[in-house]
């Protein structure tokens, strides 16, 4: 076994961004290489099936009505089922069916895919691992045995400064307008708008975190009250006036 120093960072260019995978603790590099390869395959396959930027992807063809759901790969129906659950959980604030141009599960897929990639790493002899898909983060373990990962949430107006540091026990997704302009769609007003500048959600499932962060961005306070009632999930927002709000158990690091 060839042991490598910790942490190691692996970069996978996929889904229009770079997904980083960090492995912590001394580990067997050949086993890690194989697992990273499987994680990469998962991400590439998700992009192939779900990309709304590839006109020939099954989801693009489904959106155009060229194929039925039954004619797409089975994971499309699986994800749409998960999206329906997230829609119900968010009382309609997360609604892939409301988007102009046909059903678009993109708001769920990136987090879901990062979590699938992480699952390929669980058998490794590491103290922890982080998959970060452009700010949607799935993890297990910690930087060392007995230690918890810490994640910085950048300020939406100044990425050089952190608005908060949180303990990352499983997953964290952040949604906001800062990076891409108005792209969040309000399913109730049918307008592109958002209630807050940045919305973060932590919890055990990154697909759900991703969907709830999108809902929180659009719905603001109403959705935060809702998330406060969902076991295992916590939320934090920053609005344009600089006010930070959070559910009481949001895992801030205070030091």
């Amino acid at each position: 076994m060839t042991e490598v120093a910790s942490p190691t960072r692996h970069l996978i260019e996929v889904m229009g961004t770079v997904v980083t995978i960090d492995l912590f603790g001394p580990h067997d590099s050949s086993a890690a290489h194989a697992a990273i390869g499987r994680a990469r395959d998962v991400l590439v396959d998700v992009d192939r099936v779900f990309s709304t930027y590839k006109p020939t992807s099954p989801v693009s063809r489904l959106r155009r009505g060229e194929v039925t759901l039954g004619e797409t790969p089975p994971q499309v129906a699986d994800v749409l089922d998960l999206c329906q659950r997230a829609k119900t959980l968010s009382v309609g604030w997360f609604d892939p069916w409301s988007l102009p141009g046909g059903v678009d599960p993109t708001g769920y897929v990136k987090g879901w895919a990062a979590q699938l990639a992480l699952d390929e790493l669980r058998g490794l002899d590491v103290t922890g691992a982080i998959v970060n898909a452009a700010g949607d983060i799935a993890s297990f373990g910690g930087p060392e045995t007995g230690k918890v990962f810490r994640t910085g949430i950048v300020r939406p107006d100044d990425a050089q400064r952190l608005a908060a540091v949180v303990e990352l026990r499983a997953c964290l997704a952040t949604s906001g307008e800062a990076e891409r302009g108005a792209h969040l769609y309000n399913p109730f007003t049918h307008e592109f708008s958002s209630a807050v500048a940045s919305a973060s959600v932590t919890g055990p499932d990154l697909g759900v975190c991703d969907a709830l962060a999108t809902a929180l961005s659009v719905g603001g306070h109403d959705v935060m009250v809702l998330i406060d009632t969902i076991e295992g999930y916590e939320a934090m927002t920053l609005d344009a006036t600089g006010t930070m709000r959070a559910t009481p158990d949001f895992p801030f690091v205070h030091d």
Partner: protein
Amino acid sequence: MKRSPIVAVGTVVGLASVLSFHSSPAKISLSSATGVTTTLPTTTTSVPATTTTTHNSAGTGAAPTTVAPTTTTTVAPTTTTVPTSGVRSATGPLVNYYFGVLSVKVTANGKKITAVTLGSISDGGNPRSQQIDQYATPILAQEAMAAQSSNIQSISGASYTSAGFQMSLQYALKKLGI
């Protein structure tokens, strides 16, 4: 056991300038719902770990060193040819990004990053790409520094993660032994 009321935790000063970001039309990430007609290819820009490539001057549209299909790049903290102490800088290799080719230059003092800048960038003179470059690359540089300044392992939020920037940055950091 869930509880009530939402607490206002604090106020981050100076957020008013957030609106300056909102005016940008930059849309590169996959998850944007509308408006993007192209995307990065599903390939990885593979830069051999032993590369000593120096790049052509910006503006010539120089091709990146290598482009391999769908491979993973691994950056391990291995040997380095640059001193790992004192003030020094290193430039990562030229890599593809959304609109062209760029490289990232990192300056460090000891293990602490003190500056992240573009070593070079060639975007073909496209006005839209220039606009995006002007707004995105400082964010990316600042994220790198924010991550370094705290004892944290990852960053979330406003993460305009440009593939090329991250790729070149990782290799520049590796050269510096960070």
